[in-house]
């Protein structure tokens, strides 16, 4: 799954590199013709391309290779079994049942985005202590995921922090086994995930909002617009692209949740996600071939979902004037 993440993760990066490469070639191309050094840009590109191939394409290529074998992760000989792993995945519905867990994270990411947008909007206006609040909201994203996992394990323990606080404010009746209760566990985990990633969305939104020219607000105020109108007709359309990008990242993130549930519950009590299941298949059951095929399937699912989203939300140019 690390391979999948890196493949999708570097996807946008790759596109960005490609784009700068194109513009650069245009410029240097003209220079190149003048000097007769057509090869020069390629020489400069040699190192990044070599790194790109070594760390992105070769591992992904290996993953595709393993996915058509019955490899156990150890044996020096790879036994080619064709598409048998893929057939197995699609004939075992229980392997897909775990995507049901992803729905909790999809729902959570909607909440996360709404909260981030709310805070970003409020803090983009002049609010008292706004820098302190920005810091507070962004800080969870800086804490490493393993530490968050452990902190929240104590937080959710019976008579742990959460229960103590609930009792203190007289809501003791709400207390339950936050992780032990099968109806609650995914909500608790998704909540942790919101706590962690909201800051990132917040910063992205805030940055986008601050790039909107200030005179637009002034002009709208003169026209009698209130804060809601400003949000609805200036901010929301102005940051549409970043919102749609965040949604794409959130949905593909929800399909491949791993860190928080893996650290906190190890996938027990019905909190297994597709990626945890893949890891289990590779390292507990020693079916690296099958696990690689599952990783490929997840990659394809993420690509398809992203494609559908792009079709549903066309990537228009933003025009505020």
């Amino acid at each position, binding site marked *: 799954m690390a391979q999948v993440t890196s493949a999708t993760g570097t996807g946008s990066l790759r596109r960005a590199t490609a784009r700068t490469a194109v513009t650069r070639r245009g410029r240097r191309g003209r220079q190149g013709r003048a000097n007769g050094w057509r090869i020069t840009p390629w020489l400069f590109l040699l190192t990044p391309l070599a790194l790109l191939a070594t760390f992105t394409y070769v591992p992904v290529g290996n993953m595709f290779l393993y996915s058509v074998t019955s490899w156990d992760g150890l044996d020096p000989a790879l036994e080619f079994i064709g598409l048998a792993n893929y057939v197995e995945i699609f004939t075992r519905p229980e392997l897909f049942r775990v995507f049901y867990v992803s729905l909790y994270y999809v729902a959570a990411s909607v909440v996360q985005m709404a909260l981030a947008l709310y805070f970003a909007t409020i803090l983009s206006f002049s609010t008292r202590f706004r820098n302190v609040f920005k810091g507070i909201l962004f800080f969870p994203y800086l804490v490493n995921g393993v530490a968050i996992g452990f902190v929240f394990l104590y937080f959710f323990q019976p008579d*742990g922090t959460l229960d103590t606080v609930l009792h203190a404010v007289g809501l003791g009746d709400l207390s339950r086994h936050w992780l032990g209760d099968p109806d609650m566990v995914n909500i608790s985990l998704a909540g942790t995930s919101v706590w962690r990633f909201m800051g990132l969305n917040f910063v992205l939104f805030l940055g986008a909002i601050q790039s909107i020219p200030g005179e637009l607000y002034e002009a709208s105020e003169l026209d009698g617009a209130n804060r809601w109108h400003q949000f609805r007709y200036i901010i929301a359309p102005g940051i549409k692209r970043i919102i749609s990008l965040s949604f794409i990242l959130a949905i593909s993130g929800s399909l491949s949740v791993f860190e928080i549930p893996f650290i906190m519950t190890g996938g*027990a009590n019905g909190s297994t996600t597709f990626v945890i299941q893949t890891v289990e298949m590779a390292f507990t059951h020693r079916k690296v071939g099958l696990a690689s095929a599952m990783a490929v399937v997840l990659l394809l699912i993420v690509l398809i979902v992203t494609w559908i989203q792009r079709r549903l939300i066309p990537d228009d140019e933003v025009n505020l004037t």
Partner: protein
Amino acid sequence: MKKSTARAAGALSAATLMLLGACGTGGGSGDAETSGEPEEISGSITVLTQRTDIVDTVFADYADRFNEVYPDVEVNFEAITDYEGEVTIRMNTEDYGDVLLIPNTVARDQLPLFFEPLGTVDELSADYRFVQEQSFEGNGYGIAITGNASGILYNKRVWAEAGVTEVPTSHEEFIAALHAIADNTDAIPYYTNYADGWPMSQWESLHAFTGDPDADNVLARTDAPWAEGEEHYQIDSLLYDIVAEGLSEPDPLTTNWEESKTLIGSGQVATMVLGSWAIVQMQQAAEDAGFSADDIGYMPFPSQVDGVSYSTIGGDYKQGINVHSDNIPAARAWIEWFTNESGYAFDEGGVSPMVDGPEPTTLGDFEPLGVQYVELNPPPAGEETLLSDIRTTSEIDLGGNVYRQRLVDIARGAADGDMASYFEELNTRWADARAQVG
């Protein structure tokens, strides 16, 4: 570190020879023949270990003592936290040290691909126990660093407080004892250590409690290991009943291994299923918590055959030699010195890997109970990988935590089904896998 040791102990399930009585002072010289005179062996070797906690102290001292005998050998250690995971991946290259602990995931038929044979099983067995556990086609590939006995760890003070003075010898007596603890003390009767996962695998090491050294081979040939009366039925139904009757901790999802040591040491938890490797750690925890090390007791699985209780003993990790090593004589000299001279097994409170090694002091509780030790028989020729193949194909991780965590979930009502339906599912998956593996 402590955790990795524990994982190693989970490997108890392998397989070995001989039924040992209160194993003893058998003949055979402790000194195995070395491949050369000490002066002739020279060079440098790298030893991989899972003991990140003592590599710079105890192991450094071992290297010094080793150098007194073999002055020309330089020993380097590499301590690895996630030993299983990292080493199995490194084994895809040729660079995985000269001496290493054979990972549990290596199937028997893969041993010759990665490890140097140390001799035939018959030769090695004259001096060492547990040789069969890492052997293929009559050759042994590793010598155990220490050995473990299986059983149930408990806090004697709490059990006595609850009024239980006799060690239970049946399922019903054990459950009744835990009920007494729940009713008469503040302690949690049983702690599953569910969240960390690996402690759940300790239940597997209890198998062969019927005293049958062929337990593993029987398991590989049965279609229904979870049918009533079978070993796995007895082991897993005990776990199921403990949880179903509310005798375990309230929220298993938030357990914590390091904390569990203090809990049992101080008597807030009464019982845990753990290998004998844990006794030393828990005694330490008891002392750290201000209680006595004598509070920690050890009992066999509550079941008797003709009035006798059995405890399976098996090797912990085995040291083997990288088949690509440039310095096999020195590597071999290290393994022999480590096993015969270092005293590692004794210091860890483990069963000695040497046939005539010293008795561990930690298993004193077993003596008055007359517990007999069982060492498992190896699989018959041609069936070396049968059991591991069935496990892999059925995706029932006997030595892991996935299927037992689900058992706990069902028992506490957090997953659908009941014991009967789950055991039936396990039987079906096992039988299907057996049919596929052939």
